C-alpha cells in the first residue's frame, strides 16, 4: 500500500465542506492553523471565505466569525443570499458573527506616533469567545493594508492575530489580493509568511474562455494534491472543484458481459462489452456513431436496464426519428422509464457546469448504461486542456458508478484521422471501435473494426457494414484493401485484375 507513510506526523485537518477542495487538500484545512487564500480580483476569494464558514454551520455545526476589512456586512449578507445561505438567520442563532472592520466612508484618520491593532485583536478574541467559534475568515488583507500608512505595523499585527488564533485553536482563512495570475503570492509580499499554508485561486482567460482553478501551493507538514484543479461556482452550492488526480483508480472491473445491442458486434467483441467499461466509438460524420449509440441503448432497455443518453449534437426529435428509422422505438422505452434522453447545446454552459449537471443527472437517474453522443462536440467550448480535464473527470465518474459508458467521437476528416477526443480518451477507455468510410472502385462503403478490447479477445478484421431499416449489419472483411484506418484505402490485391 502506498497510502500509509509511517513516522510522518500528520497534522489534523478539518473538512471544509467545499466540494472537491477536501479531496485536493487530502482532508481539508489544517486544524487550528491559518491558511492564506490568495487570488486576483474576481477569483472568488470572498466566496471561498464565506463558504468555509457556511459549510461549517451546515455540515459540522461549527460556528464561525467573519472579519471583513472590505465589504460591509450588509453587502456580504445580500451577495450570498442567491447561493442559498441566509447569514442573518445564522447570526440570530449565534452561529455566525461579523467583526466589521470595513472602512468608514468619508472619514479620514490622522496618524500621530506609534500604534498597533490591539482593538482589532480584542474584537476578534471577543467574537470567537462569544459564539465559541471553530472557524474564522478574514477578508481581505489588502483592504486592511489600505487603511493604515505603516505596512510594517499591519504585517506584524497580522502575525500576532494568526498566533492568537492558533492559541485559540481556531481554523482560519485570510484572503489576499494578487495583481497577476502567475507571480508573487500576494501584493504586499509578506502574506505567505503570515500563514503556514497557501491556497491560490485563479481566474484565467484562456483562448477567450474563463477558467477558474485552485492550487495548494504550500501546506506545511501535511500532504495534498499538487497542481491546478478547475472549479466552478454553482448557484445554491457555491464553489465546486473537480479534482482529477484525486480520484482513486479503484474501480472494480467485472467480467460480466453486456450486449452492445447488436449481435454481430457482440460476436466481434468476444461476446459483448464488459459491464464496467468505457467504450469509444470514433468515426467521421455519417459513419454510424449515432446508430451504434441507439443500438447500445436499445440493447440495455431490452434487458430491463436503465439507459441514459446525453446528446450534444442532435435534437430530441431527430434522435427519436433516427431510432425509428432503424426499427427502434425510443418513445416506448422512455414511457417505461428505462430511457432518459438529455439534449443540450455544448455552448449553453461551460464545461465545468456541464460536468456538474451531468453528474447530478447520473446520480439521480442511476442508469445501468450511459451514452454520450458526441463527446467531441464538447471540444468546441473549451480549451484543449479544459477539455482533457472534462473527459478525464467524466470518465472517472462513470467508472466509479460501475456502469457501462459509450462515448462517440467525430473525427475531423471524412477519411480517417484522429480527433482530440481520441487523443485524450484512448488510454482511459477499455474498448475502441473505429468506423471508417472506405472508398473502393468508385463507391463509398463503410467499415468497422474493434481496435482495442481490454481483457478480452476480439476480432481484428475490418468488417464492411451496411445500414438498413433494422439497423447495422456487419458483413465480410475488406480483404483486398489496405490503409483504411489511415484514411487512405488502396487496392492490395496485386494478382487481381479489374473485370
Amino acid at each position, binding site marked *: 500500500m502506498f497510502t500509509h507513510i509511517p513516522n510522518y506526523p500528520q497534522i489534523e485537518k478539518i473538512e471544509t465542506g467545499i466540494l472537491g477542495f477536501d479531496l485536493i487538500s487530502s482532508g481539508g484545512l489544517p486544524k487550528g492553523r491559518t491558511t492564506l487564500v490568495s487570488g486576483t480580483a474576481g477569483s472568488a476569494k470572498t466566496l471561498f471565505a464565506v463558504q468555509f464558514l457556511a459549510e461549517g454551520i451546515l455540515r459540522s455545526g461549527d460556528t464561525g466569525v467573519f472579519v471583513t476589512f472590505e465589504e460591509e456586512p450588509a453587502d456580504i449578507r445580500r451577495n450570498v443570499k442567491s447561493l442559498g445561505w441566509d447569514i442573518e438567520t445564522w447570526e440570530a442563532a449565534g452561529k455566525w458573527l461579523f467583526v466589521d472592520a470595513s472602512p468608514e466612508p468619508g472619514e479620514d484618520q490622522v496618524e500621530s506616533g506609534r*500604534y498597533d491593532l*490591539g482593538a482589532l485583536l480584542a474584537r476578534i478574541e471577543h467574537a470567537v469567545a462569544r459564539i465559541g467559534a471553530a472557524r474564522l475568515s478574514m477578508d481581505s488583507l489588502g483592504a486592511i493594508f489600505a487603511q493604515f500608512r505603516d505596512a510594517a505595523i499591519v504585517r506584524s499585527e497580522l502575525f500576532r492575530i494568526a498566533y492568537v488564533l492558533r492559541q485559540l485553536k481556531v481554523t482560519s482563512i485570510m484572503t489576499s489580493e494578487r495583481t497577476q495570475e502567475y507571480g508573487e503570492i500576494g501584493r504586499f509580499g509578506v502574506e505567505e509568511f503570515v500563514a503556514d499554508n497557501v491556497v491560490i485561486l485563479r481566474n484565467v482567460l484562456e483562448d477567450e474562455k474563463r477558467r477558474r482553478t485552485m492550487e495548494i501551493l504550500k501546506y506545511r507538514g501535511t500532504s495534498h494534491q499538487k497542481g491546478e484543479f478547475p472549479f466552478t461556482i454553482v448557484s445554491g452550492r457555491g464553489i465546486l472543484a473537480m479534482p482529477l488526480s484525486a480520484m482513486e483508480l479503484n474501480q472494480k472491473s467485472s467480467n460480466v458481459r453486456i450486449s452492445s445491442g447488436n449481435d454481430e458486434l457482440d460476436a466481434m467483441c468476444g461476446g459483448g462489452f464488459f459491464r464496467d467499461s468505457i467504450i469509444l466509438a470514433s468515426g467521421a460524420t455519417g459513419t454510424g456513431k449515432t446508430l451504434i449509440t441507439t443500438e447500445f441503448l436499445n440493447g440495455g432497455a431490452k434487458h430491463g436496464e436503465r439507459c441514459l443518453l446525453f446528446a450534444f449534437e442532435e435534437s430530441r426529435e431527430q434522435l427519436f426519428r433516427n431510432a425509428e428509422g432503424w426499427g427502434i422505438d425510443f418513445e416506448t422505452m422512455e414511457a417505461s422509464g428505462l430511457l432518459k434522453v438529455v439534449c443540450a447545446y455544448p455552448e449553453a454552459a461551460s464545461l465545468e457546469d456541464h460536468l456538474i449537471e451531468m453528474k447530478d443527472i447520473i446520480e439521480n437517474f442511476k442508469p445501468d448504461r450511459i451514452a454520450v453522443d458526441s463527446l467531441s462536440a464538447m471540444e468546441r467550448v473549451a480549451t484543449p486542456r479544459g477539455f482533457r480535464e472534462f473527459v478525464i473527470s467524466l470518465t472517472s465518474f462513470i467508472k466509479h458508478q460501475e456502469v457501462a459508458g459509450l462515448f462517440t467521437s467525430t473525427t475531423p476528416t471524412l477519411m480517417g484521422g484522429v480527433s482530440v477526443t481520441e487523443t485524450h480518451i484512448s488510454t482511459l477507455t477499455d474498448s475502441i471501435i473505429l468506423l471508417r468510410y472506405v472508398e473502393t472502385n468508385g463507391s463509398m462503403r463503410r467499415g468497422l473494426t474493434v481496435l482495442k478490447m481490454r481483457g478480452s479477445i476480439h476480432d481484428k478484421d475490418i468488417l464492411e457494414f451496411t445500414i438498413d431499416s433494422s439497423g447495422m449489419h456487419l458483413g465480410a472483411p475488406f480483404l483486398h484493401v489496405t490503409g483504411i484506418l489511415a484514411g487512405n484505402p488502396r487496392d492490395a490485391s496485386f494478382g487481381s485484375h479489374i473485370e
Partner: protein
Amino acid sequence: MDLATQYLLKLFVAGRSARTEQAIANLRGLCEGEFPGNYELVIIDVLLQPAIAEAMKILATPTLIKEGPLPVRRIIGDFSDKEKVLAGIGLLAR
C-alpha cells in the same frame, strides 16, 4: 464657560501598559496646554469592553475620537506628534 467649545474626547486603549500611560500623558498634556479644563476625556479599555470597540469600529489602539465639537475626527497613535494631533482635532486649520 463656553459650552460650544467644550471638547468631548474618547480614547480607546488596549490594556494599561507603559505605552498606554505614555499616550494618555501625551494627550492630557496637549489638552491642558490648548484648552485647559475645557474638555472631557473618557478612556475605554478595549480588552475590558470589546463590544464598545466593535460598535465604534475601532481597529488601532490608541485611537482618539473627538466627538465634539463637530465634525467627528479620529486620530490614531500615541500623540507624540503634537502638530498632527492638533490638526486632526481641527485646532490647526490649514
